[in-house]
């Protein structure tokens, strides 16, 4: 549970979205989630969970939901 709220917080603070927008949030669905925003988001997730995400996973990280699956691969239970 604590990990999930940490995960959510990274999106909220990086992409200036509200909690309510998260479940349907995808890359490019808000102006802040572009190439620049994606780098900020991934960098902060790596820092928050102390992991290093593979290039392929960074490329596949196309939505809030998809990101949950990816983070799980690194042993983080959301």
């Amino acid at each position: 549970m604590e990990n999930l709220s940490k995960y959510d917080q990274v999106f909220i603070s990086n992409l200036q979205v509200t909690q309510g927008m998260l479940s349907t949030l995808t890359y490019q669905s808000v102006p802040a989630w572009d190439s620049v925003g994606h780098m900020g988001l991934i960098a902060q997730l790596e820092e928050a969970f102390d992991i290093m995400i593979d290039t392929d996973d960074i490329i596949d990280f196309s939505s809030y939901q998809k990101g949950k699956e990816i983070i799980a691969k690194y042993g983080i239970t959301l």
Partner: protein
Amino acid sequence: MKIVEAVWEKRNLGVVCKEITFEAHDSLEDLSGIKALVEHTEYLVVKVPTLRYDLNQAIAAMGLSFIEVSIHFELMLKNALLSGLQTRLNNSITYAEMEVRDLELLFDEIRDGMFASDRILLDPAFTSEQAANRYIHWIQDEIQRGAQVYKILHKNQSVGFFTFKEIKEGIYYPFLAGMYKAFAASGLGFTTLRKPIDEAIRRGGQMISTYTSSNNLPVVRAHIQQGFSISGMYYVFIKHN
């Protein structure tokens, strides 16, 4: 004021196109001299420097409509910025000069609507075929004149491209770049700016000079994030006759 007959656009778009660029010191009186051009040119493009509302207003009164800001960017290579994460990713991405079949792939991607913020594509007076043809011709012309076109590769797969042209000794102009559709949402977009920087450094250059449209906010943001500064801005107005 500079008036250019854009003959290449006749072939690209099939219409007679003229481009007028005003400079900060031009006066409002210069407008009277272009009245005939404004009324009769099939496709007219007028660029006005910022802070000249007198010109904006007079041009709008002549029936031109505002479509974009042309933002000019410059980067001294020694000022290039890249985050730690981007450096890691950039190291796993390579680039190589295109061969003929790579160009075909690129042209297919362009026909598929790669440049969504292009002022030709945004304009209902033009078709998407015209917009695509214009880019394809542009690239072919520049190759003829000695420019290079590179593919950006992730694990041997093309994810995007960039062009490269020396406009003055040590100053490079990547006149076009973009990501392919399957990788548009990959976060790798930054490499379309970074790989030209890497190539300019490899060639011992000093500077990148380029411009982009205000209608392409992600690309404007990407330039700024990588250390580019804005050297100038022009308001762009258009009219069809």
